[in-house]
Every structure is written in structure tokens, then in C-alpha cells.
């Protein structure tokens, strides 16, 4: 991610959350979706995205399928049952983290 190192630890959560909403997505689609949702504020770099996707796949959180689109093969990622459960856990963890950070940086808002 080029914008900030602060986002780096949340990359897996971002991917899981998007897949939770979209059923299945391919790598390029994920980068474009994040860009659109954050109005260009957050760019997931390709160099970080694919290692993260492959790691999540190895952990059994993602399943893959390949389809022929136009004149090429496209690899889609989708959540497994474990992945869906893990998404909920990760989102809870992230919410807790945001709450803690808010309490630290702006105590009045917390």
C-alpha cells in the first residue's frame, strides 16, 4: 500500500471484508474496488496484494476458481466457510483496535 504503513496490518481484513460482500473477486478487481471505495485515498499495491491472497488461500480462508474471460484465464477468489467466520473475527478485532486508538489519540471522542 502506497498511502500509509498504517494500513498494512489491515490488508487481510480489507480483502476478507470485500470478498464477504462480493461473493467472488479477482486480484485487479480488488485493487479497483478499494480505490473506488476510498476515493483513491488507499491504493493496494500489486506487490502486496498477491502475496496476501496466496497466504489467505494457504490458510484455507479463500477458495479459488478459474474462468475463461475474453481470451484469457481469470482466477477468482471467494471465502471458504472458515474464511467467513474469520472475517467476522477480523472485523471485530479491527473495530476494537479503532476504538483503542480513538481513546488514545482523541480521548474526548472516546
Amino acid at each position, binding site marked *: 500500500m502506497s498511502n500509509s504503513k498504517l494500513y498494512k496490518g489491515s490488508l487481510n481484513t480489507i480483502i476478507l471484508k470485500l470478498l464477504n460482500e462480493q461473493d467472488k473477486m479477482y*486480484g485487479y478487481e480488488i485493487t479497483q474496488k478499494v480505490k473506488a471505495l476510498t476515493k483513491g485515498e488507499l491504493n493496494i499495491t500489486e506487490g502486496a496484494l498477491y502475496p496476501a491472497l496466496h497466504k489467505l488461500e*494457504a490458510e484455507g480462508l479463500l477458495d479459488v476458481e478459474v474462468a475463461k474471460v*475474453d481470451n484469457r484465464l481469470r482466477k477468482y477468489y471467494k471465502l471458504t466457510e472458515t474464511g467467513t467466520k474469520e472475517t467476522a473475527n477480523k472485523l471485530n478485532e479491527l473495530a476494537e483496535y479503532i476504538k483503542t486508538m480513538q481513546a488514545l489519540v482523541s480521548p474526548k471522542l472516546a
Partner: protein
Amino acid sequence: MTLNEAQIQDLYAFTRNHYVEHYDLQTELVDHLANDIEGMWKENPKLSFEDAKQSAFKKFGIFGFMEAIEQRQKVMGKRYRNYFWRELKQWFRLPQILTTLGLFCLYYVTFSSSYVAVFAFSFYVLIGAWCIYKGIQLNRQFRRRKERSKKKWMLEEMIYKQAGAITLVFMSQLFNVFNITDKFVENIYHVLGLAVLFTLLTLCNYISFQLIPDKAEDLLNETYPEFCL
């Protein structure tokens, strides 16, 4: 505007030139680059394919495809080890455990004799020679498979070319068989330990050089179901 077949093949060659040798990862990266190029053409239709390709590649950062390759290798290495352990565990369950016990008894009896040094050396050389023979044979098989399919899969390469990598390390630690003295048989724990080590060495080599390559097709289909090999 979409990429034509020649441009897709050019992207495959481009990934190969940037050290992405395996078809599964190549396919994913080619689609990514193609999508990015098509996205750029929407905004600037006059942009050349070559410039768009370089621009798309730059987005992967200074390490290019390296991070994706390394992560993929880690994932496939883990998968290979899982298959290996799955096979090894079978040799400690019925009925294979009977063979394992038989093998252990053979080693234990021979290592308990006063010819322990001769036996240990002979078994070591025998296993080593068989590993070299199988290694050469598997390497040839891998080359033939690659020529036939024109594609290379990461797990396939691990099965055929890196077979025995685990046991080579193991064997390098067993070089002490050359220093066995007559006093060795006096200590039962030494004999037991050596018999266990040789049993494991035999099983590990048999699994990685024979069993896993024999099941290569099934394992590749299990690993890459999306490509329907």
C-alpha cells in the same frame, strides 16, 4: 479495447522473463496486467501496448513479481510438506506399520551384530545410490512432462526436482556411520537410535522419491482443481 491473443502471449513471455516460471502464477499475473492495460487504454486509447505494459509492471514496485513468487513458493512448500507428512503418518498405521516394524527389526538385528560398521556403511551407500538413481530418473520425467505440456507447475517441480531435499539434509547428518567402532553395540540405546534413524531415512526417501511422484497427477489435481489438470 481488449488485448488480442498475441498480446496475451507476449504478457506470458514477459512474466517468464521476470522470473515467473510457473503457469498458475503466470496466469494470474497476465490477467492482472491485461486488466490494467485495458484500463489505461480506456483513458488513453493512443497509449502503446509496450508503454502500458511497462506502466502496469511498475505498479508491482521495485521488487516486481518477486514478492508474489516468494509467497507462492512458501505456500506450495507448505502444501508439499503436508502431503509428505500425510504419507509418512500412513506408515505408522495398520497395515503399513507392520512393514515399518519389519524394517526396524532388520536394522536393529544387523546393527546389534559385531559387523555393525559394515552393515551401517552398506545400508547408507545402498540408500544413497538408490536416491541418486531415482533423482536422475525423476529429473528426466519432469523434463519430458514439461516438453509435453509446455507448462510448469510449482508443485510439480517440487515433486520431481526437489524430491529428497528433506532426506538429503538427514543423510548429511548420518555421516557418522563411517566412524562406528566395536564398542557401539555395547550400548543398546545407540543401536536402537541408529535403527530408528535408518528406518526413518528409508521411509522418508521412499515417500519422496517413489510414493509422492507416483501420485503426482492426483496431488496436482488436488492442488490445482481450478485448472482441471
